[in-house]
Each structure stands twice: as C-alpha cells, then as structure tokens.
C-alpha cells in the first residue's frame, strides 16, 4: 500500500435514536485524534442526500481513500454508503460501517456516558480495520431469462403467470397430477364467500395455456446446482401411464376401472378409481394411474381402461423421465400441510367418527365432495343439528411444537359456520375460541356477520370430547371464561380448526436448495421486514404458506412480490454478486475436506489443483461470505475476503489497546501472539462496567 491512508469518519445522530444516548459530537471529536483520520464529522442524518453529498465532497476535496460511518446496522445502509464511494470513483469495499445504534444507543438507553465511551471504542476499532481494507474486484454473472417455480398452488400459479407475462420462461413444477394446491380443496373463501375453485380454475387454465409456461406435473425437483443467474435443475417426472397429448379427459377409463381407492383430494372421505383425476377441474385434465393399486401393475391382469379409451392414450410402458433445466432464479411456493390432530387424544380425532378436521369439513360441504355438498355426519349420515368448532388445534401449542398462530383458522371457522347457517339456519353452532383474530381486510365485518347469524362464540378452549357410544354424539367439556361457568355441550358434530404445518418433504427441499428454515420449520426469509420474499441464498425467492401460515390474499401478494423480485434480478441480464467471498491459498491447503463438509451453500469442492494435489475450490458466486470455512480451516489456507485475519485482528487489537490505534501490516501469527501476551494485562470487559 504505497498510497497514504486517509480516513474520513462520519458519526450519525439518527435524529434522537443515537444522539439521545450517545454524545455524537464527542465521538466525532475523538475520532479526529485517531491515526490516519483526516476528517471526522457528526451529522443529523448521514444517510440523507445531504449527508451523502457531504461524504462525496470530502472524498474529492480531502483525497479520502477510506470511509468509516458510525450509524445504524450495516444491514440497513452499508449498500447506501458503498454506492457513495463507488460514485466518487473509490472501490466500495474501502468502506467500513460501525453500528452505534442497534448495538450501542438502543441497548444502553439511560447510560449515556458509558454508551458514548463504547461508541468511541467501536469507532476506534473500525478505523483500525479500515486501514487494512483492500479494494475487491466487482463481480457480475450472466442471468438467464427463465425461472423455476416449485409448487403449483395459487401462489406458484400466480408467480408463474406474472413472470410469463413479462416474457420470462417459466417452469412450473408440481408433485401432484394436477396444479391447484390446497385452494382447490376449499369450498368458499373468506370473507367474500367466493367459490374457491371458480376463482382459481381460470388461473390454472391460463397457466397451462401460457406459451411461456411449461407445466411439469407429477414431478419433483431432485437436484439444484449452480448459482444465481444460472441454476442447473434436475426434475424427475413420474409416469402417468397415460399420454398427456392424447388423453382428452373424457373419464370413460375411470368409470370402467374396477379398483376403488380413498380420494386424497377429499381428505380420504370419498373414493376414486385407480385411474383418476383428483377433481373435475384438474389441470392438465389428463388421467393418471396409481401404479401401486392398478390391477395390471399388481396382478398382471385387467387393462380395461385401455380397451375403452377411444383416444388410445394408455401407455403402460411409460417410464420416469429425468428433465434438466437451466434457470436464472427459483421461486419456492410449496405451501403447507394441514396439522394431523391425532396426537391431541383429548379430542378423539381418529377415534370418534363425528370429530372431523376443518379441511375434511371443506370437502363435506363442497358440491363436488363425497356427499355432494350435503352436510352429513360420518357415523350415520344424519344431518347434524348442533355443531361445535374447537379453535387453535395444533396452533399456539407448545406441547405439539406448533407454537405459532396459524393465521387462517379463526376466519376459516367463521366462514364454515356462516356456510352452515346459510344452508341450515336452524343448526346451532358453538365456536370455542381463545382469541378471535380478525385482522385482515373485511375480516372484522365478517366476524360481525357471524354473530349476526347467532353463531355462539364461547371464550374458552375445551378440555375434552367424550362420545356417547349409542348416539355417537359428543359431549364437550369447557368453561365459559366470561361467565366463569363450566359447560357441558352435547354436539352431534365436532370440527377441529386445525393449524398449518410445514409440508412433508420441505426438509429435503431445503437441503437441495441450501436454504434455511426458521425455528417453527417454515422457510426463513433473508430479513423479516426488508427482504421478506427473499431466501438468504441469492436468486431464491419464497411465496405463500411455505414461509409461514398465510391466507389466499397474502399468498397471492407474496407470489406477486416474489415474481417481481425475480424479474428485477434477471431483467438486466447481468447480476452483481458479493465480492466478499472465501479465497483459497492452494499452497497451504491439505485437502482435508473440513470446509467442504461445513459449507451450507455447496460452494466448496475439493478438486485437483494446478499443482496436481487435491485442494479446495471455492465457487465465488455460490459463496455467501458466511466465513465458516475460513474459521474452520486448520492450515489457514482459506481466507474470507474483506474479513481477513489481519483486518479482524487489527480491530480486536484496537478494542484492547487504545494507544495502538494504528496497525502495521504484519503476519497475523505475530499479531495473535502479541494478543495472547497482552490480553491478561489489558482491561477485561468485566472491569469496564455493567455493559
């Protein structure tokens, strides 16, 4: 570094957020005394246009070549200030951000003096580190104009349509034989009471017919490699044994098929044949043979379907198909599974026939369901006259591990209750609830409408249901908490408002995609507020209930946001990627594979190096710069650019040795040694006070 190091320090007040606790003027005055600091200023809002202009002017006038901003979290504004440097011709990696808001003023409210001292120390550390920062090469990768959408529910369909309309090629992968997802199973939607399939089916058809959308049903994503801009995808398409191009969906095959099977689409309540479409509006409307139960596949006989098919569409030799795709971005929209309430034995689901789940009820009240929409009890086919709903089953429940609110059950129960009242005004309905959460647009009004229909809301979650062995009626024990009275309600049908849980197979998918899950098991967004539809892996976006329980409008909104984010990312044809990535010194690498096994993002592979021995190879675009490899490497062959040992140790030294604000560029071993020597004498964190 021949050039003289010239540091500019800017201390932000952030209105009163920082200045209310930290004496920003004192911090800036102190910064001026630090080595290599040419200018230090404090500013009310350094992120404002005015603040940014101030930095630009100083860079030009004072020839600054390092900039330190002490303000909020780098997650908020690091990019803002990197851009400031870039606009003045400096490399953006010569910028260092100090967080004196979240990590100082906000956590030390009322301790102004100590907080100011801490802010000074943090700035001193940053100034020391900034002197060792090195310019990094700005990297760009090519972006394909194509997107993979995983999951063909309403979210996946909407994302696919939005991207296809913008000219992107979309591959919509769905593991079931039809798209439509959970929404297709619902009878009506709250709070508008639209017929669910009536508003969904046109979108399903549109997706199937769109020239930019390739529909891959009966298919699952097996492998994802590559990085943003160019992901390589392997999809496995299971055979239907029916030719998609020939089948006209007439259904004669199904009427002739002798094998009856429980229909998963009707939650197992009704039956279908071994050759089937899940529901009449299936897209594509192509029949599908369930190989495990087809007489031909199990016993080598039958093939009746083939005899009656006028289109000659049956093909018993159809094989699994491995499909390979290249896409620029991925949208994950794999939805949710309904909670199975069997473990909550007190409610008797699976034991008492007249205890059903809310999703089963949707099929029972649906015109194309097993009872053709007639409300019947499962035990005797009788119409129920008193129905009880139990809320929060498998939600807000530490015992079952589903600690979160499932978001839709309050409104779903109210909708179902209103539906019953519309068809059977005489039917008594009791909803046992803990809280009614009616937060969405039109929800509160809908809740009022339910009360208007004389639906009885009982505050208090029942302890148990007990079946009368003769009548199969159920006695519910609960307490009306408002009256403080014990209630025994004998109902002839109990509907459990079950929660939403992460879908089966989500764990495998997260492994394939190298994306994390949150503590409740749903997919984790990159930032809960500022990047709510992005996975932490660049180029992967999230839509719908796989990110957390969501109703239809929220799922569609998130799908549209994900589609728009993917389009924004790919539309320029080039994508700038983070330069702060791992770097291997092949001379030191012993090929131990520790880094390879630790890398969450599959960014490291052990390959033969230029000298012929095995060494780690980092995919600089797949690397997210997490630093795990660099900290684990036993020979220090791996370095994380922008977070080198020298840079970090300079920062650590400055934390402990006030006088050594300056740092010479010396081998990191020596710095580590000197640290080991001096730390015991240095004042420890304990001595510095409560904080």
């Amino acid at each position, binding site marked *: 570094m021949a050039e003289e190091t010239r540091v500019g320090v800017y201390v932000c007040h952030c209105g009163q957020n920082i200045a209310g606790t930290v004496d920003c003027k004192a911090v800036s005055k102190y910064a001026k005394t630090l080595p290599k600091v040419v200018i230090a200023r404090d500013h009310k809002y350094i992120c404002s246009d005015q603040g940014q202009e101030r930095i630009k002017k100083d860079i030009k006038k004072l020839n600054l070549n390092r900039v330190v901003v002490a303000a909020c979290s780098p997650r908020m504004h690091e990019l803002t200030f990197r851009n400031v440097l870039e606009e003045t011709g400096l490399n953006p990696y010569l910028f260092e951000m100090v967080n004196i808001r979240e990590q100082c003023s906000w956590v030390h409210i009322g301790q102004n003096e100590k907080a100011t001292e801490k802010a000074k120390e943090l700035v001193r550390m940053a100034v020391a580190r900034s002197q060792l920062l090195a310019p990094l090469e700005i990297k760009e990768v090519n972006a394909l104009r194509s997107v993979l959408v995983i999951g063909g529910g309403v979210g996946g369909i909407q994302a696919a349509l939005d991207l296809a309309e913008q000219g992107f090629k979309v591959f919509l992968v769905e593991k079931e034989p039809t798209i439509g997802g959970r929404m297709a199973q619902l009878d009506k939607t709250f709070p508008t009471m639209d017929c669910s399939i009536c508003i969904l089916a046109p979108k399903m058809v549109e997706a199937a017919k769109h020239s930019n959308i390739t529909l891959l049903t009966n298919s699952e994503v097996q492998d994802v490699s590559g990085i943003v801009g160019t992901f390589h995808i392997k999809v496995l398409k299971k055979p239907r044994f029916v030719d998609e191009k020939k089948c006209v969906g007439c259904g004669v095959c199904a009427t002739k098929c002798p094998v009856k099977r429980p229909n998963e689409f009707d939650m197992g309540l009704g039956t279908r044949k071994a050759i089937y479409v899940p529901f009449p509006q299936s897209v594509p409307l192509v029949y599908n043979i369930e190989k495990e139960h087809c007489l031909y596949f199990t016993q080598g006989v039958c093939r009746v379907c083939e005899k009656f098919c006028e289109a000659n569409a049956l093909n018993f030799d159809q094989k699994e198909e491995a499909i390979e795709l290249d896409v620029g971005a991925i949208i994950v929209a794999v939805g949710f599974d309904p909670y199975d309430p069997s473990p909550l034995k007190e409610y008797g689901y699976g034991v008492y026939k007249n205890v059903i789940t809310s999703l089963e009820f949707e099929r029972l009240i649906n015109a194309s369901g097993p009872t053709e929409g007639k409300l019947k009890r499962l035990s005797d086919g009788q119409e129920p*006259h*008193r129905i009880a709903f139990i809320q929060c089953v498998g939600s807000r429940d530490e015992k079952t591990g589903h600690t979160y609110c499932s978001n839709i059950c309050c409104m779903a129960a109210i909708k179902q209750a209103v539906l019953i009242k519309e068809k059977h005004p005489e039917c*008594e309905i009791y909803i046992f609830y803990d809280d*009614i959460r009616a937060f969405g647009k039109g929800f509160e009004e809908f*809740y*009022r409408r339910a*009360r*208007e229909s*004389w639906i*009885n*809301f*009982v*505050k208090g979650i029942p302890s148990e249901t007990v079946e009368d062995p003769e*009548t199969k*009626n159920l006695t519910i024990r609960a307490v*009306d908490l*408002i*009256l403080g*009275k*014990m*209630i*025994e*309600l*004998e*109902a*002839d049908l109990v509907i459990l408002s079950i929660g939403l849980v992460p879908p089966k197979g989500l764990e495998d998918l997260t492994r394939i995609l190298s994306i994390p899950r949150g503590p409740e098991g749903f997919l984790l967004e990159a930032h809960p507020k500022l990047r709510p539809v992005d996975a932490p892996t660049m180029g992967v976006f999230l839509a719908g209930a796989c990110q957390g329980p969501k109703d239809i409008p929220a799922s569609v909104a998130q799908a549209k946001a994900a589609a728009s984010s993917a389009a924004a990312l790919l539309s320029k044809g080039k994508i700038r990627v983070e330069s702060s990535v791992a770097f291997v010194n092949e001379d030191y690498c012993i090929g131990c594979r520790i880094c390879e096994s630790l890398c969450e993002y599959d960014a490291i592979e052990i390959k033969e190096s230029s000298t012929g021995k095995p060494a780690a190879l980092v995919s600089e675009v797949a690397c997210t710069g997490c630093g795990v490899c660099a900290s684990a490497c036993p020979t220090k062959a791996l370095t994380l650019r922008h977070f080198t040992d020298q840079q970090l140790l300079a920062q650590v030294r400055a934390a402990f040795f006030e006088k050594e604000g300056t740092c010479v560029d010396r081998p990191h071993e020596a710095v580590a040694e000197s640290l080991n020597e001096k730390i015991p004498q240095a004042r420890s964190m304990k001595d510095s006070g409560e904080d």
Partner: protein
Amino acid sequence: MEVKEAKSKIDPKFKFEVARVAGGESIRYCFQCGKCEATCPIRRFEDSYRPAQIIRATLLGLKDMVLDSDMLWLCATCYSCTERCPQGVRFTDIIRAIRNLATEKGKVHPFFKSQSGAIAKFGRIFEDESFLNEMRRELGLPSISVTASRSEIAQILRNTKIETLVKSEEEK
C-alpha cells in the same frame, strides 16, 4: 341432546326470546369487550353488577340465571353503555327487554313490586304530596294533586295487567 351449565340445562332459544322484544335484537353483535361495564355508573359502586355477563349468559342460554338475577334490576337506564358500545349493542334496551320477559313470568324484584304497588295506590311512587307542594309554593307554582287521577292510573295498571304481575305475595 343438551347443553348444560354444571347441572342446570341451557336454553339455546332464550336469546331469540330476548331478540324478539323491541330493542333486544342488537344483543347478537356483542363481542365481549367490556366497555359497557367500564362505562356503567352502577358498576362503579357494585362489583357484582356485570352488564357484559348478562349479555353472555343470555346468548349462551342461561335463562334462569338471567331472569332470576337481582342484577337485572340495578340498571338505572342512563344509556351510557349504549352510547359508548363499539358494536351498537343497545344494552339499556336489552335489559328492558329482559325485564319484560322476567315480568311476564312473574319474576319481579320486590323493590319494583313495592314501587308499582305505590303507584297503584297513590298514583305515584310516594304517598305524601305535601313536601312537593311546599317546594312548588316556594317557587311560586300552584299546588297539584294526583288524587283525582288515581282511579285512571289504577285503570291503566289493570288494563295493562301490570297490576296482577306486580302484586306482592301478601296482597295475593
């Protein structure tokens, strides 16, 4: 098939009886926020007076509990709760409707009975008119007397059957 509160039976149709009486139909909108109770001036002095509970018990169908309750008769009909209810529940009208139902069944609080008895007897709720006319004299107003209209008031009470409903035990 039944609904029970501990050992007593619940009448799910009771709420409809209340709703049928003029002013009673708004009861269905209550979502138990408690603002009526917080507003109620009686509630301020009497902890056991719980307007929101009366509504809840009515909606659930605890008919006897509601109709037998002394609390029913504590409402001063000031309309503060009705004024402030966020859901447009007209509690004052509802409690009047419930009182009417109770009265129909002969369930009237003894205090109301004695008041009605006084009206039947004296044409007003108190017997002595002299202090009233004293006040009127001080204000320069002419004396009045309801003695003349007593028979008419008694007629009204008879025709509206209030007389039989409120007759206290010893009179029967």
